């Protein structure tokens, strides 16, 4: 009888520790608040499916897609890291560029929480960088050649260059034949 009561005391105390422990854990283990995406889905149903899938599978989707893209040149928007970034990271946050080292960064919020190092941004840009490459025109280009140390050469006026070059170029013969 005594033996049984000791057992029950131990059991109840264990239960107590477990329950209090769990409840304490519960209060701390709320997943961190995530930043709202820039673009929203048309319906909540699609959004919920996206969230459910991505919570579990985003790493596999990205791993699969990266090989498809680099090796096979498949560049669809689905599961492309660029699309993820463009939608989940705002271009500016509190007046500055949001980087993966900031705790507010969509990816970093969770990754910091679970202490999971993220490697993507060692190479990939971590925020939308859509600044268009300005018009590539030969005339307004600054000519420098750091490695050779050659003096920068001004772009020759097209007419002069054309004249000189055409005299030498093999292509002159081509055009000459035609004319």
């Amino acid at each position, binding site marked *: 009888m005594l033996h049984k009561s000791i057992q029950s005391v131990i059991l109840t105390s264990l239960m107590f520790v477990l329950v209090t422990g769990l409840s304490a854990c519960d209060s701390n283990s709320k997943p961190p608040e995530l930043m709202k995406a820039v673009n929203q889905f048309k319906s909540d149903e699609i959004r919920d499916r996206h969230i459910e899938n991505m919570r579990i599978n985003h790493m596999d989707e990205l791993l699969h897609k*990266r*090989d*498809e893209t*680099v*090796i*096979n*040149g*498949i*560049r*669809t928007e689905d599961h492309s890291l*660029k699309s993820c*970034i463009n939608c989940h990271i705002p271009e500016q946050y509190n007046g500055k560029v949001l*980087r993966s080292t900031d705790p507010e960064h969509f990816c970093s919020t969770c990754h910091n929480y679970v202490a999971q190092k993220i490697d993507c941004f*060692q*190479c*990939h*840009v*971590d925020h*939308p*960088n*859509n600044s268009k*490459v*300005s018009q*590539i*025109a*030969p005339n307004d*280009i*600054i*000519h*420098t*050649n*750091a*490695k*050779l140390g*050659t003096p*920068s*050469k001004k*772009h*020759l006026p*097209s007419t002069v*260059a*054309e004249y*000189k*070059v055409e005299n*030498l*170029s*093999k*292509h002159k*013969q*081509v*055009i000459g*034949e*035609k004319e």
Partner: protein
Amino acid sequence: MNDINSYRRKFLGGLAGTAAVATIAPGIFLREVQAKPADEAVSDKVRWGMLIDTNKLDDGGDACIEACKKEHGWGNDPKSNDTQQAQWIRKVKVTEKMTGHEVTLPVMCQHCETAPCVDVCPTGASMKRADGIVQVNKHICIGCRYCMMACPYKARSFVHETIVDQRPDTPRGKGTVESCNMCVNRVDDGKNPACVDAAPQAMLFGDLNDPDSEISQILKKFGGTQIRADLGLNTGVRYWGI
């Protein structure tokens, strides 16, 4: 027609004109670069190649280099010194001793058919795509730099420092090797490589496997020089005037 277009027309005029007469109709130019559907894998039916007329590059390729820097975001790594800076494409000056004749040519990855860099890579990161473009799969590059040693054109660079604010289509990161990738992102999108767009009077991009393409027609008629042809690498980049 703007200046660039008129240069291009002149550059292509002679041969493309005759080819078009022979095959289709005068004045009809076949579009060189055709965009594949985004969800379709690249195939070995095409082999991308490039022809560079150094005589028409009046700036020796400066415009190409600047365009490449803008497109891929290299060349301005703050902590690297001049010898460490990445160089996807560089200017090489060759002087003939006897006559003193100088030729300046842009040299980048030559996209060899049998690429030494692909042979030596221990992880398979240095790879040739089915369409002939040689590039580094940085996901599996360990930065050993064997490919840099193997490349006879000195086309590859190593990234020495942490990089931020990369171009979205050109990831670059510390500890990986990189080189000209013929602007895969642009080619997959149906565009010309950035350097070709920057010097359209002197450069031509197209499919070497298609006998009817402008580049194949021109190469068939006039040939094109490979740098170090003696190595038998069958490069995808050919030159005139060297």
